[in-house]
């Protein structure tokens, strides 16, 4: 395998007296889907916010493409190629797919001194990119509000990929979706990975992780419980790690192993 595109080394993050991250280390390679699992409050969100430049780590080092990184704000991270698709998206329902797709990065066409939004180009690209992801729009002017949750995730992912993301962080993209839509999003993740982009897939659903993940890192109470490659670990073992072992085993026993 090539060198990791991003290395998080011993990251610590304190909020006042609360230690959210107590020394977390994760490597992510290009073209892999690295699943980050953990229960609520495990520190997943803090970790990816640190990775995407929202938070500065209290201690530890981030190495991106072999060089130490020090992001001032999320825009630096975006410019460097680290894109985040948030749980709450960042799509504007009232705006068309094409307008959303190019929000903040609008293509312009010059008319003498005037610079106009190049609708023709925007529409063409948005339609093509969406088709590539397997979504057929009625038209580029279709409002995002009319799309399903899975389709919106796909628009957001396609947008990040189109604008040159090298590392794509997906923050619980499947948590609010139905079975069919989840499958669509997982298929999208697979396509993105095959383009050589490093995907960091945050979830607390082991089955979703097992479906597309290459490697799995489990976070618990601000610490890594280790990273395992595909085939090295069973879903049950992952589940146990997430919940903190023993207690969960007992709980599961009482529930007949269905969780």
């Amino acid at each position, binding site marked *: 395998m090539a060198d990791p595109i991003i290395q998080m080394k011993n990251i610590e993050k304190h909020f006042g007296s609360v230690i959210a991250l107590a020394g977390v280390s994760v490597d992510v390679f290009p073209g892999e889907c690295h699943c980050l699992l953990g229960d609520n409050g495990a520190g997943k969100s803090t970790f990816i916010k640190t990775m995407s430049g929202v938070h500065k780590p209290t201690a530890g080092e981030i190495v991106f493409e072999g060089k130490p990184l020090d992001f001032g704000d999320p825009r630096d991270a975006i410019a460097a190629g680290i894109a985040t698709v948030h749980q709450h998206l960042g799509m504007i329902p009232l705006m068309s797919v094409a307008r959303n797709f190019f929000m903040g990065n609008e293509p312009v066409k010059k008319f003498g001194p005037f610079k106009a*939004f190049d609708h023709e180009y925007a529409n063409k690209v948005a339609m093509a990119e969406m088709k590539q992801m397997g979504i057929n729009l009625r038209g580029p002017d279709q409002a995002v509000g009319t799309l399903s949750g899975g389709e919106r995730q796909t628009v957001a992912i396609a947008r990040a990929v189109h604008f040159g993301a090298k590392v794509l962080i997906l923050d619980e993209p499947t948590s609010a979706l139905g079975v069919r839509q989840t499958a669509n999003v997982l298929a999208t993740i697979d396509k993105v990975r095959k383009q050589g982009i490093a995907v960091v897939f945050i979830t607390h659903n082991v089955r979703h992780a097992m479906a597309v993940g290459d490697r799995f890192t489990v976070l618990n109470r601000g610490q890594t419980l280790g990273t395992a490659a595909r085939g090295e670990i069973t879903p049950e073992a992952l589940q146990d790690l997430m919940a903190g072992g023993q207690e969960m085993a007992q709980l599961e026993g009482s529930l007949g192993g269905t969780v």
Partner: protein
Amino acid sequence: MSDVQNTDERIKETSRLRQALIRPELGGMVGTVAVFVFFALFAFDSGMFNAQGVMNWSVVSAQFMIIAVGACLLMIAGEFDLSVGSMIGFAGMMVAIFGVTFGVPMWLTIIITFVVCVGFGALNGYIVVKTGLPSFIVTLATLFILRGFTIFFPQTIERKTIIGGIREAAEGDWLAPLFGAKIGKPVFQWLGDIGVIDTFQRGNRLGEPVVDGIPMLMVWAIGLVIFGHWLLTRSRFGNWIFAAGGDADAARNSGVPVNAVKIKMFMFTAFCATVFAVCQVMEFGSAGADRGLLKEFEAIIAVVIGGALLTGGYGSVIGAALGALIFGVVQQGLFFAGVESSLFRVFLGVILLAAVILNTYIRRIITGER
């Protein structure tokens, strides 16, 4: 994946006509047609559709359009400006005090007025984006502050609240005609001569047509509507306006300079109010402390009739212009039709309600809300 798999059989095919119909302007278009049909039936021979009558409601509509364009873009960017009416009074009073009382050359007076008023607009915007307070409250404060100054300054300086003599002070100025002149006079004179337009029957304007040109007010209105429409739909900045009003956080995440967009829109709204005020004082020759009262609501009503969403992120400048046209035609048309003038508000309320209900319905189709 094949196409078939991704086509949701539950989504009905929508016809092209329906597609063409569902747009923010639809409410305004339907309303405009309805209003004209209505007055054509009830007030056709009342003089409403002769040259003078057309000019009358056109000028009133043009006034509404000027402030509606600013209010529309600002509302789409997610904010309100309640200080528009006070700004109109304040700007007019500034022209009077600098131009008449202090004798500053009119072109300089106009420039100073624009700078100060647009500055107030920027201040509105700056306070809103920095404090995160609702613009409703911030501009409500500005409404009172500006109205207070508009009464205080002339009273302190001149001991009166109406200052006249602006027309005389603007005589021969190079910039003033941009706001106060009329264009196309020879055409109208010719139309008067061949009898298309009535002419004055007595007085020192004997033989001149009763409508002698298109006031710059209307040129400004049309110019601002075209500019606003282009900016919103055809420019990169327009996408930012939609984004800022649709979801400011999402827009920020995507790198849209939301704060700058909002501040600029507050400045543009102030600019529109100042254009309104300067055109008004140039036409009427005096500035009064009560000018522009309640105009902010009239602007907002026109914008809402035109299909914009009060919560931002959705709307159309053309729609707002049609809303202003409806407003102006109804306001003046009721007089032509001889309706008791106190019923104007009833009509306005009914139209507003009908427009909002229609627009909500259209928007649901567009966004798939249920």
